[in-house]
């Protein structure tokens, strides 16, 4: 185990930034989100949950895909992909790290999304263990251990030090780059923190959620469940839950007309929106109940049925904290998940 004194962290960020980009939780106008690091920005590793997850790193909320240039009757297609510069994604919590696995299965499956792949390959991920989980956290339900996330390197934070450990070659290379800041030590401190956090994790109110009914064979029964009406009753149809979610992956592709052509871009989409998957005949889901149901069926039934039982919820609890009207996946799990929830 290696450690870095907390007061050296800003110099460490600057060192990384000399040769690579750094994407890290930063406080801006009162809220903490992942941003590209620059001297003077206020890094906040202590924040348990950034508002948005770090999925932006690989799957930005808006990105240009290609350009079409027209001149007379000639049409030119311009590739706008630039070579991806290496990046360090720093401070990823266990839930958000698991979420990257969920996204990989979508974007790196055939046909591979080359935009996502390029960023993914160019990035070194440093995870950060949790030491102060809160009431909305339930990553344990999905078999995630918040005290020892993986990634290219894992880190733990206490009042005085950031402890790090490399897990892959990329992680080793990063530690070699910052060797002037690190010293040996921290095994006992990390172990003590992990034990303490594990005790808290066991006591969290949602630690025992039962998911046993969310199985592919129950698909039709769950789809037809009469409880969806009541569960979705207060839904505003906003996209908050989908945009703060670390695993929501739907996007829309649109064209933007410029003076000499068209820019084709994609942006995050939300199944909560009335124009989601809009087709020539209209929207296949005509009511908010159907749109609401889609989100949770996708996370808990459709995705796992295509991915060996892996759920596409990681229990980060962001939707629990952020839904304007307090609807959320926990209520869905408690209502439809299984007997132990009663």
């Amino acid at each position, binding site marked *: 185990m290696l450690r870095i004194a907390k007061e050296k962290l800003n110099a460490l960020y600057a060192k990384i930034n000399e040769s690579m980009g750094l994407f890290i939780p930063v406080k801006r106008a009162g809220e903490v989100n992942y941003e590209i690091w620059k001297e003077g920005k206020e890094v906040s590793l202590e924040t348990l949950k950034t508002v948005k997850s770090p999925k932006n790193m690989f799957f930005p909320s808006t990105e240009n895909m290609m350009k079409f240039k027209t001149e007379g009757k000639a049409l030119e297609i311009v590739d706008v992909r630039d070579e991806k510069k290496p990046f360090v994604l720093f401070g990823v919590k266990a839930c958000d790290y698991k979420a990257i696995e969920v996204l990989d299965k979508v974007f790196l499956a055939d046909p591979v999304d080359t935009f996502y792949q390029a960023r993914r390959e160019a990035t070194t991920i440093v995870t950060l263990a949790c030491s*102060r989980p809160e009431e909305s956290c339930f990553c344990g339900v999905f078999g995630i251990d918040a005290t020892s996330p993986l990634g290219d390197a894992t880190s733990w934070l206490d009042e005085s030090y950031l402890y790090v450990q490399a897990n892959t070659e990329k992680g080793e290379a990063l530690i070699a780059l910052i060797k002037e800041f690190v010293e040996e030590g921290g095994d006992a401190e990390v172990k003590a923190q992990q034990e303490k956090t594990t005790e808290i994790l066991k006591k969290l109110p949602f630690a025992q959620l039962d998911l046993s009914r969310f199985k592919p064979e129950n698909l039709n029964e769950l789809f037809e469940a009469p409880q969806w009406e009541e569960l979705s009753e207060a839904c505003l149809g906003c996209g908050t839950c989908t*945009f703060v979610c670390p695993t929501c992956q739907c996007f829309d592709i649109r064209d933007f007309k410029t003076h000499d052509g068209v820019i084709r871009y994609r942006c995050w989409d939300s199944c909560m929106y009335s124009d989601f998957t809009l087709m020539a005949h209209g929207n296949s889901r005509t009511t908010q109940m159907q749109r609401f149901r889609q989100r949770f069926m996708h996370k808990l039934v459709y995705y796992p049925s295509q991915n060996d039982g892996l759920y596409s919820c990681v229990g980060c609890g962001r939707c629990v904290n952020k839904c*304007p009207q307090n609807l959320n996946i926990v209520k869905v799990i408690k209502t439809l998940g299984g007997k132990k929830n009663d």
Partner: protein
Amino acid sequence: MRDIELKMIERAKALLESGEVARVVGWKKGEFYFDPMPAVFETVEELNDFVYNSFCGANLSKYLIKVSKNPGKTAIFLKPCDSFSLNQLFKEHRVIRENIYVIAIECQGKLSVEKMKKLGVSAITEVNENGEEIVVSSLYGETKFSRDEVLLGKCETCKSKVHQVKDEEIILREMQAGKKDRFEDVEKLEAMSEEERFTFWREQLSKCIRCNACRNVCPACSCMKCVFDNPASGIAAKANDDKFEEQLFHIIRAFHVAGRCTDCGECSRVCPQGIPLHLLNRKFIKDIDGLYGEYQAGETAEGKTPLTSYNEEDGEPSDVFKGEEK
């Protein structure tokens, strides 16, 4: 609060049992004490989950646009601020007065869990209210707050504790309006240089994730289909871009609701990124007051409004620029 909650349940039960109303709009229990959610109750059994406490900050009036289209009368519990919104919806013919039974309820200001968390509390398991003292228990210990410390932003500047529309009331204690002047923060923005103000809004609006929660919760945003959601409008947009789109989206939205916004504060309550969107609306309210005389949207369900009527005393567009010069 518990005594009011019991009286509310009693009334809801009586109204449903007698058949006077077909449904009651209120709040139901969440997973914790602090996360109630809006709900429609159609049977007496459903009222077992009814709740009313200091975390019922949500404005229920907009739900009536949809819910009250069902047959039969709809009863709704409204806090004073929510009653302005309903009146405005009556005025705009989005909700029909005859279909609604309004029960005015007591409100001593609602609380914000978000604020408690920003003050360092996490893993909250329980919240207890002892009048002005709020006791929060968490897995990490107990914390006490005064009500004022953790009041929802919109309640700090509560404009009125007088219900603007009601059929009956359940009010047991005297209510106090907000201690903070609601134009104080607008004045701070006005006092800034153009550049400072631009930087302020850039910082704030760059956080926008374009989730549309502000729009969807807003009782004044009652278009059947928003132009930004309508592919046929030619300006449909959902891309999240901090350079341009978000600033325009929020400013256009503020213009669209100008003169109709009752300042219910829901836009800022629901924003996942904590953007003080209500300040845009409040600036318009303040300017309208100055140019066309004091006006509060939602005070009446009828009558002329400053932006849809003309008086010879009305300010001229050029006055706006004179105001800037002062």
